C-alpha cells in the first residue's frame, strides 16, 4: 500500500502546509487534532473459496474528539479494538463505515496518507520489530529521510529529538543492544524527528519492565508539556493513565466510558465488569470504603490516600476527645 507521490509534489505539500494550516485555524477555532465519526471497522474472515465466513466488528460506531495538546489515554482489555483504533489514526487501515479526520485530513483520501502519517506518528508495541537501522542516529533519521528533509536539517532534528528523549549519549550505539525502555525511547525520538503534532502509542510499555515503563511514560509527559505534542496512549496499565487529561475506555469495539481519570476510576465496579484493573491504590481505597471507612471515591495516588486516611484519623481523634 505504498503510495508513490512525486518528489516535488511532496515538497509543495510541506511548503503549503504552514499556509493552509493557518487558514484552517482561522476558519475554526476549536480545532480537534483527531476526530472519529461513527467509526466502524470489520475484519472479514473468508474461507478458501472467498465466501464470507464470519464478520468480526473490531470497532463499532465510535465517536471520539481529541483536542490538540491533550494527553489522552485509551483503555481496554485484549480484543477491545483499541489497537485497531490506533491504526486508523495513522491511515494504516481504512474504516468500513464512518470516517476519521487527523488534523482535518480524511484518512480515506489517499493523497493525504503521507501527511497524516507525518502529523500523527505511531509507536508500536514490540521495540525490536520497529527498529529498521543498525545505528541509533540512522534509526531516528529514517523518518525525516522518507519525507525528504535535506541532509543538514536531518542531523539537527536527530540531535534535537534524541536529546528530547534523553538518548543523545547513545547516538552511535546499536539499537538492538539497548534495553527495552531505551529502545522505545529511540522509537519515540524517531517519530519526534518527523515533527508530528500528535503521537499515537499502541501499548508501548507492554513488553517493558517497570523501570522501562516509567522512563517511557515520563518522556511522553515531557513531550506533551514542553513541545505541546498531543499524546494518544493506548494501554492496559492503569498506573500510566492517572495523569492523562482524558480517558476513553473501549470494550468489544464500543466506546463505553469517557472522562477525567478521577471520574473513570471512581467507578471501580464498572471497570471490573469490563475486566480492567484499577490502580492498586484506588482499589485499596475502594475496598476500605466498602468496609465502612468514609474515604472519597477516585483516589489515584498513594499521597492522596494518606491525606485522606489522616483526615479520617483526625476526625476520629476529634470525636474521641469530645
Amino acid at each position: 500500500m505504498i503510495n508513490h507521490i512525486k518528489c516535488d509534489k511532496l515538497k509543495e505539500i510541506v511548503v503549503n502546509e504552514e499556509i493552509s494550516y493557518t487558514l484552517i485555524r482561522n476558519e475554526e477555532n476549536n480545532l480537534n487534532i483527531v476526530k472519529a465519526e461513527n467509526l466502524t471497522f470489520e475484519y472479514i474472515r473468508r474461507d478458501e473459496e472467498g465466501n464470507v465466513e464470519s464478520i468480526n466488528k473490531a470497532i463499532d460506531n465510535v465517536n471520539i474528539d481529541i483536542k490538540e495538546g491533550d494527553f489522552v489515554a485509551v483503555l481496554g482489555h485484549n480484543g477491545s479494538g483499541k489497537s485497531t483504533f490506533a491504526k486508523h489514526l495513522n491511515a494504516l487501515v481504512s474504516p468500513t463505515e464512518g470516517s476519521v479526520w487527523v488534523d482535518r485530513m480524511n484518512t480515506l483520501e489517499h493523497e493525504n496518507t503521507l501527511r497524516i502519517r507525518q502529523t500523527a506518528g505511531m509507536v508500536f508495541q514490540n521495540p525490536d520489530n520497529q527498529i529498521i537501522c543498525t545505528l541509533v542516529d540512522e534509526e531516528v533519521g529514517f523518518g525525516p529521510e522518507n519525507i525528504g528533509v535535506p541532509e543538514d536539517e536531518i542531523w539537527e532534528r536527530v540531535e534535537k529529538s534524541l536529546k528530547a528523549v534523553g538518548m543523545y549519549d547513545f547516538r552511535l550505539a546499536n539499537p538492538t543492544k539497548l534495553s527495552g525502555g531505551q529502545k522505545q525511547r529511540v522509537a519515540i525520538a524517531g517519530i519526534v524527528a518527523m515533527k508530528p503534532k500528535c503521537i499515537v502509542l499502541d501499548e508501548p510499555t507492554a513488553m517493558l519492565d517497570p523501570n522501562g515503563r516509567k522512563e517511557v511514560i515520563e518522556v511522553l509527559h515531557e513531550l506533551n508539556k514542553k513541545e505541546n505534542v498531543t499524546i494518544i496512549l493506548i494501554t492496559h496499565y492503569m498506573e500510566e493513565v492517572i495523569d492523562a487529561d482524558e480517558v476513553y475506555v473501549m470494550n468489544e469495539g464500543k466506546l463505553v466510558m469517557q472522562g477525567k481519570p478521577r471520574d473513570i476510576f471512581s467507578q471501580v465496579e464498572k471497570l471490573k465488569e469490563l475486566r480492567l484493573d484499577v490502580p492498586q491504590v484506588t482499589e485499596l481505597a475502594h475496598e476500605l470504603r466498602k468496609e465502612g471507612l468514609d474515604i472519597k471515591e477516585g483516589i489515584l495516588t498513594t499521597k492522596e490516600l494518606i491525606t485522606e486516611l489522616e483526615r479520617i484519623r483526625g476526625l476520629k481523634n476529634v470525636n474521641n476527645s469530645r
Partner: protein
Amino acid sequence: MIRDITIGQYYQTNSVIHSLDPRVKLMGTLIFIISLFLGMNILVYIVATLALAGLIIASKVPFKFIVRGLKAILILILISAAFNLFLTPGTVIFKVWKITITDRGLKTAIFMVIRLVYLIMGSSLMTLTTTPNNLTDGLEKGLSFLKYIKVPVHEIAMMMSIALRFIPILIDETDKIMRAQQARGADFETGNFIKRAKAMVPILVPLFISAFRRADDLAMAMEARCYHGSNGRTKMKPLKYSKKDYLAYLILILYIGICISLNIIF
C-alpha cells in the same frame, strides 16, 4: 552456542582502507579479480601479489583473518587443482599407473590455485574493511545506473540491510526455540546427521511463523514512518567522494594499466 556465529566479518581498525568510500572498494575488488583472469603471465601475478600484500599491510587487518576465508573453499581449490593437474593434455613429465601429469597441467593447476586464493583474499579484504551497511549503501549508489533499466536498486539495497539487521534477532529466536524444545525433551545433539537434521524441522516452523510476524510488524512500522520507496527520499549520510577516493581510483587505473600492458608485451 549458536550465538557465536558472526555474520559479516568486519574487522575494525582505523586504516586508510577502512575510510575509503565503499564504491571504491567494490570497484577495486572487481578490477583486482579482472587482473587475475587476464592471462597466465607470471609478471602480472607478481604485480598482483605486491598489490595485495601492500593492501593487506595498509589495512592493518591481521593476516590470519584474511586467510580464514580460505578454509571454506579449501575443497573447491583442491578439486579444481586436481582436475587441472591430471586432465590437461600436454608433454608428460610424470606418470604412475593411470595418473599422468603434464607440464601444461602443472602450470594451469598452479595458476588456478593462486587465482582462487587471491580472489578469496581480495574479497575478504573488502568485507573485512567495510561494514555491511556501508557495503549495501555502496552497492545502492554504485549500481544506481541500473534503475534506468527498471532494476529496483534502492529496494534491493533496503532488503539487504534489513536482512542483515534481522540475522542476529532470528539467531536469538532460534536459540530460544531450541532451548524451549530441549526443556521439553527434544534432542538435537545425538544421533547421525539425518536424525539431527530431522530434529531441526520442528524448530523451523515456529521460526518461520515468528519471522513472518516480525516482517509484518516491521512493514507497518516503516509505513507509519512515511516509507514509500526511493521517491523523494533524502539521505542522512550520503556517500561522498573525498580526495583519497579519487587518488585510489587513480591507483586502480594505473594498476590495471600495468597488468594489461605486461600481458601484451610479454
